[in-house]
């Protein structure tokens, strides 16, 4: 299972490609690729967004679903999805609409 992530060009904000076909700021609404075809489609969308200068550092990352939530497999990506673990009031985790994965 994979989702597409990147940093937004203008401010570097971590974003994911969402089910609503837009780049979103919280991982929860990310579009999940469950097979090769899905991955290829995400990859193509990422390439197009890079070419359109919307995002940079586009990457397809491994995720799991836990209690209906999307949780990245690697710690690196979990930290990107939440924010620095030493500053809990910085990054996504500081937003009122952020719901921590269990």
């Amino acid at each position, binding site marked *: 299972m994979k989702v597409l992530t990147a*940093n937004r*060009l*203008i*401010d*570097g*904000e*971590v974003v994911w490609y969402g089910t609503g076909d837009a780049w979103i700021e919280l991982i929860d609404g990310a579009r999940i690729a469950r097979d090769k075809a899905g991955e290829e489609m995400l990859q193509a969308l990422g390439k197009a967004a*890079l*070419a*359109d*200068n919307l995002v*940079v*550092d586009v990457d397809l990352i491994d995720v799991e679903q836990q209690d209906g939530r999307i949780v990245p*497999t*690697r*710690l*690196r990506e979990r*930290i*990107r999805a939440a*924010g*620095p*673990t*030493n*500053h809990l009031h*910085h*990054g996504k985790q500081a937003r009122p609409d952020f719901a921590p994965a269990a």
Partner: protein
Amino acid sequence: MYRYDEFDHTFVQARVAELRDQVERRLAGEITEDQFKPLRLMNGVYLQLHAYMLRVAIPYGTLSGRQMRMLAHIARTYDKGYGHFTTRQNIQYNWPALADIPAILDDLARVEMHAIQTSGNCIRNVTADHFAGAAADEVADPRPYAEILRQWSSVHPEFSYLPRKFKIAITGAERDRAAIQVHDIGLHLKKDASGTLGFAVYVGGGQGRTPMIAKKIRDFLPEADLLAYCTAILRVYNLNGRRDNKYKARIKILVHETGTAELTRQVEAEFAHLKDGELTLPEADIRAIEAYFAPPALVARPEGDAAVTQARLDSRGFADWLGQNVTTHRHADYAAVTISLKGIGEVPGDATDTQMDAVADIAEAYGFDEIRVSHEQNLILPHVARADLKAVYDRLVEIGLATANSNLISDIIACPGLDYCALANARSIPVAQDISRRFASLERQREIGELKLKISGCINACGHHHVGHIGILGVEKKGAELYQITLGGSGDENTSIGEIVGRGFPPEELTDAIETIVDTYLALRLDGSERFIDAYRRLGAAPFKEALYAGEAKAA
């Protein structure tokens, strides 16, 4: 302090204008990321995990109050109210928007600062002893030479595309506080028998994946030959350094593969062409730069002794701080103060905008307007009258920066690690915070004595773990964080590279392991005057291995 002349101002402003144009074109989609990335990197703009990161150069770690206030202003206005001082005597901002970078650089230029050459395969910020100009054991202030090197190396056309980045460090004392032997070039400013100034020149030190101690290739280089000789070294490196493999591209590999004798021969041959040519530094020019670094007029303040004695009696906290964070100055009425950015449980090297502003105020009121950043991620007030120490201490207490732990186990160097850094394998900061909390008791820390603990979140070793008395390296194993411990490293005049003690530890076992190492040392040291590093050199790794792993071997 060095002041920009008209040329410097024009140059830096032109660079800001250039980057502003590049950023605008990038945001307008006129240039691609592939085209833009090398341009932004030349101006210190990285992309990290959560956002862009801007690395601002603090030449040889020297700042005025006005400059520090501008760093605070940037933290407040464009970032999240804090900055991170690094082992390269720089400051990094973790959250700037790309669109704001030109404005930030404009603000920096206003106080004669910039972010040029804080990235890329060029000569980086020249670092120096943080007590330069104040240290009692110093032959001469090394910073004028660092400034000369800065001017020479700034956008040097021949050395802007080296095989890899290049770092120079300089010290003016026998006691090496700038870790010169783990730099590409290390310069030790000294005097020969006749009292003439010159340098011992070390080449090919470095940390990272392949740690190496620099080799001394010249015992005494006259000061006038500084640029000619450095040019000779850089030329040999630029020509012969490996460009085929990023991991073998630093000059340390060239020195290692060529052999010190042959490399020295090549450098000397190149130097023979350059010597007495246009790179020779005119005496008048050296002295002119030196004048910028003229020490402040330190008037006699003999009342300091009585004031300090009384304040010690009145305040236990002050007495502790005085014992740990105050260093002998060449002028008996003065002292150099270390402002610890290592409060118990805090992030090593981080300072808030309010703290930066307050440090600027204190420096202006009591420190002749001088601040230093140390490679150990602390701030220094190099010239404080002993009579004013209590006032400085009281102000530091108010802003939470009076932790009396300089050179103790909680004075930890830690790189940003996986909380911020795109290259990281594991976190560094929470590891430092946890160890710091475990050893929170100052009494216990002082009982342990000098102990340099350094943490890196990957093998690039920005946290200098190879030269930590205790070094910690974060790695990723099967998707989880694991920490390797090295022992016996040291980054001073007796530089040594730490040795891996055994299998690594998961985060939840690491602090216990550190405590085991410390307890083993305490049990085995000859007496309280034998520092951890000395005990390790005497005992070797065996007792530490035994303490850490013996149970395991029996169980197995």
